């Protein structure tokens, strides 16, 4: 009987279990999670603060998942050391786990540059785990002034989750625009106006130079008084287990399209890895749940002797703030279609005859048709691209395509 070990209980680790079990119903699976709970949707934590979900509904694959999949799940335990020659993982506490196939789904941890005076801040938090959300829930009440450093996805979702709980929420970012990594100069201002209308105070192109207890001294010379600080600047892939064992890592653990690392019998998946992004061909960390899930499943399938490939990783996000839906995908460098209004926008980007990216705000209907064009690298001269730009539907794809997709099993 084959022995599988999975490090991490996020979307990648859980999907790895599913991949293994799709081929091997018998093998012994041990999953090690550093968190006290696993198998929950990490991105749900802001929705939890907002009251849109509850602890009883956050399980990603159901509360009985490990039992159903016959997984021995160890919680609150870290994988400390990997010995690829002896095929053994040493856990915190000293126990050793032998494996025939190992998957590292260790995720990423928040990082922060060193702020002067940060140690004088009494209540400071990150916002990436359920434990963070539960701690913030305790720390914030109707008298609390919250300062969030970072106006990316994590920081702004945190702001949304806390608005109705706190007295005030201020978000600052060194970048001059909100969500600058995925929106552009046309779309960011729409989001910024919306957030401010909804009561979030933004300080963009501005960051904290020094903390002094409950006061942040800003680059602009302003001071911001706060009771609770959230640092949401970014995350860093957890690569050390593999790199300490001599495996190849860049910014993330290096994997190929089968999710194999450079170490024999060791796979990796999810936010701890770096892989080839489809639209640019560049290697990068694609730290989003859908990629983690598909990589994990691919890794698990291959660990159980399958021949799966995942080579369609792109950056994409669907997110809403106070009722404004925003979707972005791919790389947004060469615009071919632009429609901007006061409250919404649609921009499509194409290069070398294929769609490479889009940004939608407001009307996001059937956006997946655009995502599919990116993923499948559909030559745009084979469809009525002008029509699909105006409105995503299956009409511009022609009768033969529809006959195959709507008249057959896909």
């Amino acid at each position, binding site marked *: 009987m084959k022995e599988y070990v999975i490090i991490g209980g996020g979307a990648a680790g859980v999907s790895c279990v599913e991949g293994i079990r799709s081929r091997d119903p018998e093998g012994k699976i041990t999953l090690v999670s550093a968190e006290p709970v696993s198998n929950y*949707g990490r991105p749900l934590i802001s929705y939890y603060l907002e009251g849109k979900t509850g602890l009883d509904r956050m399980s990603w694959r159901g509360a009985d998942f490990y039992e159903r999949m016959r997984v021995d799940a160890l919680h609150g335990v870290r994988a400390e050391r990997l010995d690829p020659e002896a095929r053994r993982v040493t856990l915190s506490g000293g126990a050793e786990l032998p494996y025939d196939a190992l998957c590292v789904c260790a995720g990423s941890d928040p990082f922060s540059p060193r702020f002067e005076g940060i140690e004088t801040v009494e209540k400071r938090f990150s916002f990436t785990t359920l434990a963070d959300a539960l701690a913030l829930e305790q720390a914030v009440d109707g008298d609390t002034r919250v300062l969030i450093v970072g106006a990316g996805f994590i920081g702004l979702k945190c702001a949304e989750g806390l608005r109705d709980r706190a007295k005030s929420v201020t978000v600052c970012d060194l970048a001059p625009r909100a969500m600058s990594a995925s929106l552009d100069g046309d779309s960011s201002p729409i989001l910024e106006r919306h957030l401010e209308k909804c009561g979030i105070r933004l300080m963009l192109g501005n960051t904290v130079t020094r903390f002094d207890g409950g006061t942040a001294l800003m680059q602009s010379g302003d001071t911001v008084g706060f009771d609770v600080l959230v640092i949401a600047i970014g995350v860093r892939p957890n690569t050390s287990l593999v790199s300490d064992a001599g495996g190849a890592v860049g910014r993330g653990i290096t994997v190929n399209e089968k999710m194999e690392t450079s170490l024999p019998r060791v796979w990796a998946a999810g936010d701890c890895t770096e892989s080839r992004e489809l639209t640019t061909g560049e290697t990068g960390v694609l730290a989003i749940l859908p990629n983690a899930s598909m990589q994990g499943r691919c890794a698990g399938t291959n660990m159980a002797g399958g021949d799966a490939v995942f080579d369609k990783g792109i950056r*994409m996000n669907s997110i*809403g703030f106070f009722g404004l839906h925003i979707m972005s995908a791919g790389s947004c460098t060469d615009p071919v279609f632009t429609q901007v209004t006061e409250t919404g926008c649609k921009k499509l980007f194409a290069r070398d005859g294929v769609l490479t990216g889009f940004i939608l705000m407001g009307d996001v209907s059937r956006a997946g048709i655009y995502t599919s064009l990116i993923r499948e690298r559909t030559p745009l001269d084979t469809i009525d691209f002008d029509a699909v730009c105006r409105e995503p539907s299956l009409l511009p794809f022609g009768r033969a395509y529809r006959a195959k997709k709507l008249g057959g099993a896909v």
Partner: protein
Amino acid sequence: MKRVYVNEQWCLGCHLCEYNCAFANSGERDMVKALKGRAIRPRIRVEGDGEITYAVSCRHCREPLCVRSCISGALSAENGTVRIDHDKCVGCLTCVLVCPYGAVQPGPDGAAMKCELCLANACGEPACAAGCPNRAIVYEEREEETA
């Protein structure tokens, strides 16, 4: 498994499938009460132009991108049917972002909604197919399924 298939050449563009779908998913027993004077929210959609029409609903893909991408675990595949747990959905619409057919949409309260083959509805099998006057929508097994 049995799926909803579309015979585009037979579609009349009558939109009856949309009304039957909205009724089947309304939980009401009376069609007039369910639909009259309301904006209907069908899970099937007739697309097309003046000449071509056809209906699109969930394909219940064998490798469903929506299930893989769902951040809350609300979407699942049970015996080939892709289902959505309304209470788990937080309305992030990642499913809308990834569905290649545009077959998932936001529902009236923000949670996503999609065709679940009417398996849990009173009609027990897809109302769109049952009510299609020209057999442009059928619910059946097709050979390629085993391929």
